[in-house]
């Protein structure tokens, strides 16, 4: 399949060249911190719902969604910058699309947990755990898959920049 010419157009833009220079390291550093916020906060909610740390009150954990969404938007911004830096590398890699789909599923599951577990203040903690347990397991599986698919991006690409 022909690689679209506009990948090259992006790569030749000033912003793309800027990203590929020194800022690249700063951007992937912030991308790692965003991951820690998004996945770490999701992990705490999921672990509590499967029964870890039973004396941790569940309802106030809703505040952790701020960290999940903060991390998510940090990832969107830094992710787009990285994509502008290396459009051919990402967009010609099947694993990149897999990663995006997995992130979408991860966020959807977290929002489903929010709706089922946190939206009704009348629920007891036992009810919250019953309603949230399966979704919590799914969220942990999905976040693990997200991190794995993200890590192997560096090992599955065919072109680092536009060929030729």
């Amino acid at each position: 399949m022909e690689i679209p010419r506009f990948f090259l157009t992006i790569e030749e833009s000033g912003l793309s060249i800027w990203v590929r220079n020194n800022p690249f390291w700063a951007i992937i550093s912030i991308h790692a911190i965003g991951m820690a916020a998004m996945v770490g906060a999701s992990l705490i909610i999921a672990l509590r719902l499967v029964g870890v740390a039973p004396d941790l009150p569940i309802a106030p954990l809703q505040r952790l969604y701020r960290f999940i969404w903060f991390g998510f938007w940090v990832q969107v911004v830094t992710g787009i910058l990285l994509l502008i830096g290396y459009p051919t590398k990402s967009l010609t890699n099947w694993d990149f699309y897999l990663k995006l789909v997995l992130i979408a599923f991860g966020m959807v599951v977290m929002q489903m947990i929010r709706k089922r577990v946190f939206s009704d203040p009348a629920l007891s903690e036992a009810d919250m755990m019953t309603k949230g347990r399966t979704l919590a397991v799914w969220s942990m599986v999905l976040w693990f898959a997200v991190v794995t698919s993200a890590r192997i991006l560096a090992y599955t690409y065919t072109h680092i920049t536009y060929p030729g």
Partner: protein
Amino acid sequence: MNLAHLHLLLNHWPIIGTFIGLALLLVAVFAHSNDIKHVGFGVFAFLALGSIPVYLSGNAAAEATRDMGFSANLVDTHEGAALLALLFIELTGLVALVELFRFTRHGDPPVRKGLSKGMSAVLALAICTAILMAVAGTTGGDIRHPEINAEGETSPAIATIGAGFVLSTRYFVIEYSRWIWPMIEDFHFIGLILIMATVGLLNIRVLGFLKKLPVRPLHRLLPLGLAGLAINVVTGMLFFIGMPGFYVFNWIFQAKIVAILFAAGNLILFHCTGIFRKWDKVGPGEEAPLYAKVVAASSLALWLSIIVLGRYIPFGE
């Protein structure tokens, strides 16, 4: 001064420290003293941490002496003994730290006759560590002091086994499959998430965010953070053993190791000892004392800087 000098400055500490820690534990057993036991466990937790740069700087020392005509075989044997000693001091330190944390959580168990499971495990591991440390020290001494070797004396068998262990680990990490390295990286990220989710969240709460959460149950999540730290020490050492030449003279890697020593030291000293017992009474809506906030802020800043330094390592080449 260079890293080889650093190796000479540091390398006696794990050996002497292991014997001091072992002596403390034996005194604690015979004197039925929980306080001395805690100190002994603390010594092993810190030794586990402090032994890491000793091992790392050893590679620099080997590089520095390469052209000086020392037997490469003696250096390899010493490296093998050192890796086995490192493995055992890490295990001893981890079990000691978990025991120390349990006391912090539940308070001291009533003094009774006989050894607890945790104490027996730490003692057994510490004895193995002491033997391996002695072998590591002797084989290290052999490199520069031929006068201590009797005529025709051969290297201890355990050190030769260790040297084989170094080579097979390097083969596994680098050559066995091209997917081993990414897999180790993946687990290194999982460890990072576990540390930040537990230690980071606790620090954030102590600083005064998410105030509706009581501190005590967050503190209970720390064993997951310790698991993350253990995963990252193991995976990090695998990277290093795989490509020591890539890391050992990289100043960003060196800075990361220093930051890890401070961050993990903070974790052991302030979060896994009786010091935290005063702070974990902070209930929902309550403020932690200023001292606790300073500790939490420094911990958070250090762990974040470790992430950044880790990502910058290729830049420091």
